[in-house]
């Protein structure tokens, strides 16, 4: 892999690590503006600003920083029609990030997402 390709991955991984540390330390709110500013544009556009719920015993959070399940980031992508795909579901899409997150929980069963996952090049 080239250095140019590796750089954003590393930055993303660092951001993830920083976010995770912030959540654990309870300072997520303080870091949020920083994450919003530096987040790659692939994540969320309008959608509701922040939603969270417990679904099948798992904590789903959707906000400007992305989608998280039990505090772990779910990689989100968009289709040309605006619908959402995730790292868990590449072969079907969902109208909203919340529905996307629920579908990921359905597929995960009791498994946890990894804190840092591979990304597309």
């Amino acid at each position: 892999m080239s250095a140019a390709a590796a750089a954003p991955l590393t930055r993303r991984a660092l951001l993830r690590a920083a976010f995770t540390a912030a959540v654990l330390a309870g300072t997520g709110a303080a870091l949020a503006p920083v994450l919003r500013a530096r987040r790659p544009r692939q994540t969320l556009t309008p959608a509701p600003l922040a939603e969270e719920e417990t679904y099948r015993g798992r904590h789903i959070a959707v906000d400007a920083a992305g989608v998280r399940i039990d505090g772990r980031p779910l990689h989100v992508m968009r289709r040309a029609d605006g619908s959402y795909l995730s790292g868990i579901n590449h072969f079907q899409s969902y109208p909203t990030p919340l529905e996307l997150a629920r579908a990921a929980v359905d597929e995960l069963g009791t498994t946890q997402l990894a804190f840092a996952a591979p990304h597309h090049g």
Partner: protein
Amino acid sequence: MHVRQNQKNLTSAQKKRFTAAVLELKRSGAYDALVRTHDKYFVPDRDRKLRVGHMSPSFFPWHRLYLLEFEKQLQQIDAGVSVPYWDWTTDTSPVSSLWADDFLGGTGRSTDRKVMTGPFAYDKGNWTVTVGITESAFLTRNLGRPQNPIALPTPAELQWAIDDPVYDVSPWDSTATAGGFRNKLEGWAAPRSERWRNHNKVHQWIGGHMTGGTAPNDPAFWLHHAFVDLIWDRWQHRHPRSGYLPAAPLALGDAQRGRVIALDEPMPPWDVTPREVLDHRGLYRYE
């Protein structure tokens, strides 16, 4: 030249040779490099980037080359092995011989979807997932998705795609619904009541790793895509006067220009054009 057989016709000895070669490829690390390639080239169609593998006309030729790469590496381990195909319109049971202990192993357990049987079960010690997006190092499956049942594509559903005489249509992505064999078979184009069809639906039916970008972690991926490759042959045979589209690079001003592969444009990472792999008869054939 070698023959790709229907998986249901393989002898026990052939199944054993195939799975042994796959396990050896995994042991060497080469298998995981292939998994990374698939994930890397999955580019969704809202991104203003080149899409070669999915949501684009080169879905068929790109996966043809991807399977050839896998098969070439298998044959370096055992020259007598080829990739079998799974006709998912006929072998539709989660307990068919495809999912038996002596071949791919069965579905995952209900809690965490962990595959417990067959050569790729984590507990056998030969199949640790290293390119994944979950914490689990074990292969996962959820055949038929019992909590929200899904059926494999029917022969009629497959035929609906094959009957379309046009290879692909603008805008050459997952929203191309005006027709086109490629999007009907890839499975984004479907009647409103169904939403997903054919190739996409098979990924969903298998579940677990097969629903994500690292789908090739499940060796079932190769048998599924060998059938997809065979279906491209069937379409060509049914429509001898139709061909790959777009035939020429898209015009200046077309929003898809530079984002999809025309007939004579090279596909990364192999630098091979669709035209070069329209016909595979010099390399392999299907039984």
